């Protein structure tokens, strides 16, 4: 019984127990869920810097099922348990008003447990099993809210399932080719495989992980799914769940295929690497602008998630130690700030009675200052304002890309400006501007929601100022994947092409802030006034009529929206329609007239006999 087995046992056992306890008492269940997720965090934290493999099960046709831990698994597992824990805490209040909460908690914990299973998997079979458990439990959670969530869940599960099937094909091809599914053994076999086989493997795994990671053109499921899922779960979904795709990509490209092979796989122009990079760039560019079009807070964040996934993709697909570190760090950053944002938006949604429409919110800053602060910090991280974690990770990615492919860097940098626009739209339309009359009585964020927000906000800043903390672990990953080691200090990074020193920046900005603050203090006293007590060139500003939130970026949108049709979404829907149409056509062969049915039987025999007598194939 190693730590990993205990971990999974605790995790999955806890799921069952949570559900059973939920039948008895809801408060008992809530306490148990929180304790359980905390215990998981502790167990994983204790595994820091351990490596090992253990066969835990042979019941599946004798194929050894392996768990293994290394720095890559650890960082993912840690993230999963951490965010899982926070989202459970966040749910305590959020779910109070909902039905079937036991189901929700059990599923939330099941998703987390299965994700841990994925990252701890030491063989592809284990990976796939946990992957599927994750997929269907996610599906149940996405659909949880009913209404529009139904379609969202459907889209998710169909795409995800198609991806899984591609993955299954890949896994089984590997199994038939090498006779083993253990990741460590596959890598050895892979090196001698033909390049066609490798490309096949990369493609099928790429589809599977690309769907989960919402890489363009496989992103179509994500916006609706993220928007319609319950907010605590959106945080998990956007934060860690889709990052399983990142994990999968790293695993495929650098462990299964191998670094050296990956860099040279495919033709000169259409090499696997360049295709992945271009896909990453498109994933940044298009969703960023689509996010601008959104009026639904969670949908906006969802599109933003896709775009950020593009950054991660750029980082890990580029394949240098700096970019790899940037990609993994951006994964961490994104987990933190996007979970934070989903939680704050969830808190707003919770307090305003389910309003997510950006056009009908506004001015909540006075009512929900905590949520505002959280959003502000989250947004800063998302944009990559210096002193937040997003800055460091994006800096690393740009730094590694800038000389190799300036065009990709351009796309990434330009995407940042799009990010600024939609981030500001998010924060402005929810918290700034006028407070609509109907939201006069909104209460402050409940404690169970504050706590995760505080922790996450703190993390955003901590990793922004002391990037060395995560980078140390990441450096281990980078080295274990076969890259050169990075020169890391607690404050930043010294790479071959320049350095990043956050402490200087931190000091400068702090000094600047203090200086300006003092300057402001020197001036005359300010009088606090009510929010809507403002200048309107002599005219009274009518309440509720004068809130500039609708069509916030209309001039731009009018220009770009014709180019932003989601062709792939349309394409998938067309495929779905076509399937439906085709199916409807095919079932018409069962005409209902029994003479036809007998005709089919006779036809079958006659056809066979005819073929046999004419060509005698047998």
């Amino acid at each position: 019984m190693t730590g990993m087995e205990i971990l999974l046992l605790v995790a999955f056992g806890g799921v069952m127990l949570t559900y059973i306890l939920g039948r008895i008492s809801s408060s008992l269940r809530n306490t148990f869920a929180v304790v359980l997720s905390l215990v998981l965090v502790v167990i994983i934290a204790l595994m820091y810097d351990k490596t090992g493999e253990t066969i835990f099960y042979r019941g599946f046709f004798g194929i050894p099922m392996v768990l293994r831990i290394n720095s890559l698994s650890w960082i993912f597992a840690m993230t999963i348990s951490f965010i899982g824990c926070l989202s459970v805490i966040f749910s305590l209040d959020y779910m109070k008003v909902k039905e079937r909460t036991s189901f929700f908690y059990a599923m939330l914990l099941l998703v987390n447990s299965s994700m841990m299973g994925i990252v701890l998997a030491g063989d592809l079979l284990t990976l796939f099993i946990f992957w599927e458990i994750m997929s269907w439990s996610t599906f149940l959670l996405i659909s949880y809210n009913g209404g529009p969530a139904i379609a969202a869940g459907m889209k998710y599960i169909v795409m995800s399932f198609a991806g899984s099937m591609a993955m299954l094909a890949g896994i089984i091809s590997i199994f038939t080719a090498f006779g083993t599914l253990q990741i460590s053994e596959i890598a050895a076999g892979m090196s001698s495989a033909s390049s066609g086989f490798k490309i096949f493997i990369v493609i099928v795994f790429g589809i599977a992980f690309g769907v989960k990671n919402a890489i363009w053109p496989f992103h179509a499921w994500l916006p609706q799914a993220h928007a319609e899922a319950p907010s605590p779960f959106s945080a998990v979904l956007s934060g860690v769940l889709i990052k399983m795709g990142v994990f999968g990509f790293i695993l495929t490209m650098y462990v299964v295929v191998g670094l050296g092979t990956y860099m040279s796989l495919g033709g000169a122009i259409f090499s696997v690497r360049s295709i992945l990079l271009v896909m990453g760039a498109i994933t940044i560019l298009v969703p960023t602008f689509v996010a601008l079009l959104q009026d639904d807070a969670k949908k906006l964040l969802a599109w933003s998630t896709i775009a950020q996934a593009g950054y991660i993709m750029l980082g890990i697909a580029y394949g240098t130690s700096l970019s790899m570190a940037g990609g993994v760090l951006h994964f961490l950053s994104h987990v933190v700030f996007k979970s934070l944002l989903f939680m704050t938006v969830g808190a707003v949604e919770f307090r305003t009675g389910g309003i997510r429409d950006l056009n009908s919110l506004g001015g909540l800053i006075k009512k929900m200052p905590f949520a505002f602060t959280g959003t502000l910090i989250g947004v800063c991280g998302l944009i990559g304002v210096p002193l937040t974690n997003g800055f460091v990770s994006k800096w690393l990615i740009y730094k590694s890309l800038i000389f190799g492919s300036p065009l990709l860097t351009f796309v990434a940098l330009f995407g940042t400006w799009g990010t600024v626009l939609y981030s500001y739209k998010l924060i402005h339309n929810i918290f700034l501007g006028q407070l609509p009359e109907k939201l006069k009585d909104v209460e402050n964020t409940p404690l169970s929601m504050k706590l995760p927000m505080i922790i996450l906000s703190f993390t955003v800043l901590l990793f922004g100022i002391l990037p060395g903390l995560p980078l140390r672990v990441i450096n281990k990953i980078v080295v274990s994947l076969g890259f050169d080691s990075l020169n890391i200090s607690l404050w930043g990074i010294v790479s071959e092409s320049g350095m990043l020193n956050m402490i200087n920046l931190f000091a400068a900005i702090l000094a600047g802030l203090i200086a300006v603050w003092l300057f402001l203090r020197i001036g005359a006293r300010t009088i606090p006034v009510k929010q809507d007590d403002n200048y309107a060139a002599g005219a009274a500003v009518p309440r509720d009529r004068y809130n500039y939130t609708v069509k916030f970026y209309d001039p731009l949108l009018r220009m770009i929206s014709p180019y932003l049709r989601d062709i792939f979404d349309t394409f998938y829907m067309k495929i779905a329609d076509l399937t439906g149409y085709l199916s409807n056509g095919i079932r018409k062969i069962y005409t209902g007239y029994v003479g036809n049915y007998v005709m089919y039987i006779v036809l079958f025999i006659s056809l066979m006999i005819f073929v046999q007598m004419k060509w005698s194939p047998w």
Partner: protein
Amino acid sequence: MHIIEFIFSPLLALLIGVFFLGLARKVMARIQWRYGPPVMQPLIDIIRLLSQKSASHGVAFNIGLVMSLAGSLVITLFLPFGKIAPMSNSGGMLVILYLMLIGPLGMAISSGESANPNASIGISRKLLLAMGYELPFLLVVLALMKAYNTTSITEIVSLQRDTGWSMFTFPLVLSGIAYLLILPAMLGVRPFEVVNAPQEISSGPLVEYGGPYLALATLQHALALFIGISLFVNLMWGGAANPVIFFLKMLVVFFLGIFVNAVFPRLRIDQAIRYLWRWPSLIAFAGLILVCVTGS
């Protein structure tokens, strides 16, 4: 020496910025056949404003503004002024690009809290305009970084000493032209003055600022002016070894901007974006491609 630079260079930037503001009013007045205020009038205004009481809309109202100005001040530490460049080694151009976000963002948050629709409209325009010029600007910057194979702005400046000014060397000449074309937008002068548009939306983001807040906002504006010009001089015009020459170069660029300001009418925001995304972007893109092709 170093500590002095740290304090000196923001102050210098502020001073030059404020001077430019005053100069702008003066020059505009002369062009329009008026006498105009004294050059030091903005400075006087700032001091006066500091002594006036003003209405505050809340914490974010204060913090946003402070953040904005502080961010801009930090940028000045990264920009070489002649040889004065106290923090040019802490991350280079990429950090500057990101620090440049803080200014508008802080401003946006601050004036957003005021719940004045004029402010919101102004902010929306400001961000859109920034988006507009950022596209060609990024292309230009990337072309530069690729051409000189460095992200450090001091290195770009020093390399220009050997190769000649960027805007007159072959592959970068296109980038230079593009940069010139977007410069008015970056400086926020006409024809790209739509953000503040005093007659239309009551100075936009500034509408709720009074007293010390307006002083800070003015300083922020001054700094933005300084940063825009300084960046151009450093990146395209070879910087200068000597602060005085640097200042003179800035002055030339500044006058260029003012003249454009004086003769052009204001563009609507969508017209502005359309303009910015068309010719300057195409030229800048061509420049980047040329650099990539010829460089490696």
